[in-house]
């Protein structure tokens, strides 16, 4: 398995024309922006403009912009869209494409590494264990998790993001 970089193929994978059609009814009212927590603190992030570009077929413009990763996936836009466009879900799909074409932010690489190593996103250190003992909590044990997770990552091709990172 290899990271697919052909944009058209990637769009096809997530639903092709239908995917794009979902946003073609967007009438650019700006509801998504008004409620967006990220747009509130960062003027440049604008989900409406992402939908606009998508409906015009300018997907490469979106995924070549790092702003895409700023979406915090709170679903406010999805809940309030008067046309019921699942904005946040569409942005996730675009992120998936962007990940394959341009790679993922460093924070997520670390998270992925941790998951590949331990199956969890936060490590179990001896300090943790000590603290849990003080609070009378049972010991944290994991069985057969790492092996399973590695298999899943390999099957879905996500481990390639890691290998790429290691090569760096």
């Amino acid at each position, binding site marked *: 398995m290899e990271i697919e970089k052909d944009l058209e193929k990637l769009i096809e994978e997530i639903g092709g024309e239908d995917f794009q059609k979902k946003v073609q009814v967007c009438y650019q009212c700006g509801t998504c922006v008004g409620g967006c*927590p*990220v747009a*509130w*603190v*960062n003027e440049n992030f604008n989900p409406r403009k992402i939908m606009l570009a998508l409906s015009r077929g300018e997907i490469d413009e979106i995924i070549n912009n790092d702003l895409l*990763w*700023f979406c*915090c*996936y*709170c*679903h*406010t836009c*999805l*809940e309030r869209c008067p046309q019921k466009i*699942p904005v*946040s*879900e569409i942005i*996730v*799909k675009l*992120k*998936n494409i962007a*990940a394959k074409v341009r790679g*993922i*932010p460093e*924070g*997520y690489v*670390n*998270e*992925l590494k941790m*998951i590949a190593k331990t*199956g*969890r*996103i*936060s*490590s*179990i250190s001896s300090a*943790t264990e000590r*603290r*849990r003992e*003080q*609070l*009378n*909590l*049972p010991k*944290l*044990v*994991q*069985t*057969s*998790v790492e092996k*399973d*997770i590695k*298999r*899943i*990552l390999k*099957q*879905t*091709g*996500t481990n390639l*993001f890691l290998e790429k990172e290691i090569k760096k």
Partner: protein
Amino acid sequence: MKRTRATKEESNLEKENKDYLLFKGCLIPSSLPYMEVAARRALEILEIKITETDNFSCCPDPIGIKAISELTWLSMGARNLCIAQEIGKDILTLCNGCYETLKETSHALSEDSELLEKVNKILLPLNRKYEGNTIVKHIAEVLYLDIGTNQITNMIKKPLYGLKVAAFYGCHLVRPSDVMNFDDPEEPKSLDELIVALGADSLPRMRKMFCCGAPLLGVNMDLSLNIAKENLDNIKTSGVDCIVTLCPFCQTQFDRNQKVVERRFNKEYNLPVFYYPELLCLALGVDPYQLGFDLHIVKVDQVLNKIK
């Protein structure tokens, strides 16, 4: 809202001997063990049995992992659901993130048989097969629907009269509403009613359903803290004594990062942050010293003094 009421009555009928499979998640057991203590004590006192397994992996994270690859996210989620399916019990989560991942995975795979097939193909080498329709519940859902606020009011020993509280639901408890189907996404009531059941007051404030900003911690610290500040400002002006959360991410954002926000924006909030089961334990009469309050970054003494 009518729908919620209906289920409330229904589930009250069948709550006898309810037994759940505890899904601890990643963040709570390793970084915020005091949340786990409180949840366990509360469930114990309220006579909700829990089973545990060591087989669960990360749920996984609905923000990071889903953004990297939705298929990986679904498959890992389905693996966890498989384990619940093997044990034959409904899942009880302590975290909004786990709640969304597992509930949405269960929903998506039950709706879309093609997707289920695709995921099962990935799970094949693991000798697992997911059938669909696993029920996933958040601890707030269990407290609100299974036990009910009346029952909680009847059971508490030390009512928290006079305590003013800001209820912070967190996004993924209620959104996307057609999947979560638990409470209203714009005007939720469950946590407020749960707080009132303890004798405390839940005060209204601006932008109650605004994201806490924690999902951006790994991407852009600056934005994340700005969002946290907006929330803290709104909470502070509403005049509360403390914040109550239902999610370890919100908890981290407001407890651990409160000091960071204070320093960066040169402001003072001094708002203790509680996980709801912690307050519940206090009201149920659990000794505060057993709950690990020293692990809170923002000191909680002022609140403990107030409710004494």
